[in-house]
């Protein structure tokens, strides 16, 4: 996984709450067995509307999504993270994220930075007034900066460390192989097996 220290890019305002993962990528795109190429599925239904924010010329090439509360609710599909990343997003900012989506993002290297809703509203105004505004997401300092706005964001300490180191979870866990073996040996005999 690539290291994430600081990201600088332009941002798109998504003025919607409860953006569920069925909206981020509809089920029809989930039949693929590859890990890449999901950019065409991102917000597929909404992108049919020419006025949708990501279709507007001033928001082309954005890499930061500034969304309403409860982003990523619903299905556990990690394809939602892949679609956002394949489209070019590195960061999603929102006041609340659904748990599974946030977990999936951390695994794949997409930063979900949590800020209060008033910061989201302020960011919306800044990037709508000037879509070319450079937005800095500084994971080291846990800070987002855009124009005159400077705001701290919340991110899980461990996820932050993993993102900054670019570490793979399975590799970390396999360092505990001895403990896993010991635990396994102590499991009760009444537990079921599938074979």
């Amino acid at each position: 996984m690539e290291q994430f220290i600081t990201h600088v890019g332009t941002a798109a305002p998504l003025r919607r709450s409860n953006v569920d993962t069925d909206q981020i990528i509809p089920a029809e795109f989930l039949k693929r067995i590859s890990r890449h190429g999901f950019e065409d599925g991102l917000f597929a239904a909404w992108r049919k509307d020419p006025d949708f924010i990501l279709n507007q010329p001033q928001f082309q090439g954005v890499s930061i999504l500034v969304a309403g509360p409860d982003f990523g609710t619903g299905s556990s599909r990690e394809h939602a993270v892949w679609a956002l990343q394949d489209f070019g997003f590195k960061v999603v900012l929102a006041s609340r994220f659904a748990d599974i989506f946030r977990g999936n993002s951390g695994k794949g290297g997409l930063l979900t930075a949590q800020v209060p809703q008033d910061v989201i509203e302020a960011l919306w105004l800044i990037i709508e007034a000037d879509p070319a505004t450079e937005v800095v997401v500084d994971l080291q300092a846990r800070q987002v900066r855009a124009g005159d706005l400077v705001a701290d964001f919340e991110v899980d300490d461990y996820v932050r460390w993993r993102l900054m180191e670019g570490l793979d979870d399975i590799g970390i866990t396999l360092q505990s192989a001895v403990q896993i073996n010991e635990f396994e040996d102590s499991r009760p005999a009444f537990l079921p097996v599938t074979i």
Partner: protein
Amino acid sequence: MGRTLAEKVWQAHVVRHAEGEPDLLYIDLHLVHEVTSPQAFDGLRAAGRTVRRPDLTLATEDHNVPTLDIDKPITDPISRAQLEALRVNCAEFGVPLYSLGDTEQGIVHVVGPQLGLTQPGMTVVCGDSHTSTHGAFGALAFGIGTSEVEHVLATQTLPLKPFKTMAITVEGELPAGVSAKDVTLAVIAKIGTGGGQGYVLEYRGSAIRSLSMEGRMTLCNMSIEAGARAGMVAPDSTTYDYLKGRDRAPQGALWDEAVAYWSSLPSDDDAIFDAEVFIDAATLSPFVTWGTNPGQGLPLSSVVPSPADASNEVDRVAIERALEYMDLTPGTPLRQIPIDTVFVGSCTNGRIEDLRAVADVLRGRRVADSVRMLVVPGSVRVRLQAESEGLGEVFTAAGAEWRQAGCSMCLAMNPDKLAPGERSASTSNRNFEGRQGPGGRTHLVSPAVAAAIAVAGHLASPSDLA
């Protein structure tokens, strides 16, 4: 200090604990389906890793499968390729698989419990958010993403931060005609789609204790729609009665040993929950959603809400947008909303008890001419059981389509879909925009209410039928 059910199960599975790091949690059962696993198996292959415990892993085909003509090749080449990928992956890595056509095939969250694989005190995961279903047995069960699927396949563990705990206490007797589905829709409407974020919900109180295992599964299934990764009900005699004698349940001395352990799991009297919600069972009535998230629900006797009712700007915009998508006018009585499609099934309400509730309403009645009704069992075993009880005949005599097992119209990944503009009453779990087909509109309801709607042709409850 006392511990909650969730804390007891968590602590019994910690492989490694270190300050400032997530706990490494052992996983007792890993369920797998075709949609969220291909990239995980590819990851194993690329890293030269194996599946650590194929004997704690079970795969089934559910999301993509057709519910008609299952003996013929699947027509959609992409769906077929995904199912074939699962078959190849399971064969290569030694994971047991129930394929289309097998008597054990069905929706992953119906199959686990009916085999007796889901037991109290276990940790259960699956690359599917409705894994919360298994919490009905007092298991800690939650959905994971594909990276985590790969992690569990490789290590049988997951690094996780402990959840907070929330008690949802429903006291009193549920009024006649009120089911577990109505309880869960009322809970989600009360705490919101984000209300459970970061929490494990524990459903408690006399109304919950009175629910069957099927009802408890419906309740726990929908926990994710309140933002909670898991929901749980403490094991009791209802749980043990359901499990005893099932294929994978312990037997003989091991059964006694297991029950002794299970009996130690319920939350201690002095356990402290991080949050508590109380609901008076007597205030509940049949519930229906009007909007585009499961929190946008109301009692059936209500009217379509107005954006003017919202307490803040975010909610006002959300209501406005939902009404536009759903093509509804504020003030319309919910009972006047016409329905053209009724779907009974899914991991939420595709079990035998759900089908019995539907048959009880349909017996001696006809589905309205304007309505297409699909009844889809959650598993092959559920279908066989329903047939042996004569329920299949009730459905077909009423004019409903009686299908084969699968996820079907819960999500638009197989041939069962809504056409743009169609409006369904559905016993599934999500009324998101386009969930049941692009442009389709969904009202979530209980099985009995769905059956009444099929007869009436508009939103209705069984008590409205003559």
